[in-house]
């Protein structure tokens, strides 16, 4: 166990605009967190270690970046971590696709008229909030990103697999095979052969959530739109068929159908499945094609039952994957050579 400190990878963890559940997710790796300490030295982790920005070294090996880009401070953090890190990993739905802060882009005005007073506000009630960006963005729209670990928060097994694959690279073959066992074949093969997976890899499955959902799918007929508390029956039947807006059809798998397994409709935190052009349009197709009516008035009535369609269907992905609103990704420039390093 006596590895010299110089062999340890330098790890940075940071959350921009987000709830820090992704950082909690890293701590939630249980005993594995101790293991992580053997391979990596967390040189910068403000949330857990209180590291100030001045202490960020210039040669970080892996930076795990969570949270969306919503303020000028977030943008600076992204630029700074990109510049100083070999690998920049977007962790969680916010960093990967914009997440819940990205819903701000649906509003007519991105900036609130007046900053609400907060608990730690100075006496005049106006806290010094960093300037807001014109729209909320995901990390890859600001700087080139090497890897993505989606989820809200990322599930333990995928997060640990990604950490093993990227941080503990080459340290221990048995650990790598553990990581490989939890990933889709192409990524797993890359890791097993001792190389990094291709840049831009998303640490998730290849199909839609329905592929790993254990519920029984029968004939699809969508009646009235229901909220989860109104509809869930312990029948083990497909939730979409029960009238719940379950987005498993359009969402990338990898979670193993955790939510649907306990009767909670999929909310789409892994982003769109790779084969899908636009998750909202796909969900519209999935729901409305099976409306249980052929009369225009009845259909209009059913449609009225849907509240906040855009906010529901693009809950985690407005900035990156809502094709009618999304901004293009940052062009790969300086990050490209560095990550091959």
């Amino acid at each position, binding site marked *: 166990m006596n590895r010299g400190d110089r062999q340890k990878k330098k790890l940075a963890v940071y959350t921009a605009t987000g709830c820090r559940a992704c950082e909690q997710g890293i701590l939630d790796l249980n005993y594995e967190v101790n293991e992580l300490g053997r391979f990596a030295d967390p040189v910068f982790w403000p949330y857990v270690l209180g590291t100030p920005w001045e202490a960020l070294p210039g040669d970080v090996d892996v930076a795990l970046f969570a949270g969306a880009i919503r303020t*000028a401070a977030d943008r600076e953090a992204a630029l700074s971590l990109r510049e100083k890190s070999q690998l920049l990993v977007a962790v969680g739905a916010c960093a990967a696709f914009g997440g819940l802060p990205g819903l701000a*882009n*649906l509003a*007519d*005005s*991105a*900036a609130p008229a007046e*900053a609400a007073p907060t608990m730690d506000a100075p006496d005049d009630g106006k806290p*010094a*909030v*960093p*300037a*807001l*960006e*014109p*729209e909320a963005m995901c990390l890859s729209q600001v700087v080139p990103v090497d890897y993505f670990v989606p989820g809200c928060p990322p599930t333990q097994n995928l997060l640990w697999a990604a950490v093993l694959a990227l941080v503990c690279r080459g340290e221990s073959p048995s650990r790598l095979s553990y990581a490989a066992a939890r990933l889709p074949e192409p990524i797993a093969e890359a890791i097993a052969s001792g190389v990094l997976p291709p840049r831009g890899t998303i640490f998730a499955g290849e199909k839609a959530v329905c592929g790993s959902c254990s519920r029984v799918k029968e004939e699809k007929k969508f009646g009235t739109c229901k909220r989860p508390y109104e509809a869930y029956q312990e029948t083990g039947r497909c939730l979409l068929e029960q009238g719940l807006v379950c987005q498993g059809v359009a969402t990338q798998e990898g979670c193993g159908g955790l939510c649907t397994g306990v009767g909670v409709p999929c909310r789409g935190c892994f982003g769109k499945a790779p084969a*899908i*052009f*636009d998750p*909202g*349009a*796909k969900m*519209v*197709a999935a*729901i*409305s*094609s*099976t*409306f249980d*009516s*052929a009369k*225009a008035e009845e*259909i*209009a009535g059913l*449609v009225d039952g*849907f509240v*906040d*369609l*855009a*906010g529901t*269907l693009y809950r985690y992905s407005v900035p990156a994957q*809502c*094709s*009618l*609103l999304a901004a293009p990704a940052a062009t790969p420039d300086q990050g490209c050579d560095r990550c091959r390093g």
Partner: protein
Amino acid sequence: MSEFEPKIVAFLCNWCTYVAADAAGVSRFVQKPNVRVIRVNCSGMVDPSYIVKAFVSGADGVLVGGCWPGDCHYVAGNIKAMRRAPLLKKLLRELGVEELRFRLKWIAASEPSQFAKTVNEMTEEIRKLGPFKRKKKSAKRSAA
């Protein structure tokens, strides 16, 4: 200065509306040249993704043409199109696409004049709306 010419993408069903569009030409109806026709086998195969993609790719309007209910070559494909349109319209409206830009229309093979009329109407309505622009944030960078 030249006037704005809308680009309209039309997904036309092979059995009814496409035939009507063909016949409209043969019958020498006066039609606006703003429509780009894409022939599909049935209006029921026009996935909402196609329509969204058309707007993303620069269309100012999208027309989906199918057979009248009951006349579908595949029995009920047009009913599927009919079910999808209202929900898609609702989504498009929330994303900043005006209602008039997307239209689902039943035009039988025997109604070429109807096709010409639809095209002309739609072109003029969209010309009034102006080019389709993606919803942009009105807020500037606010200094806190």
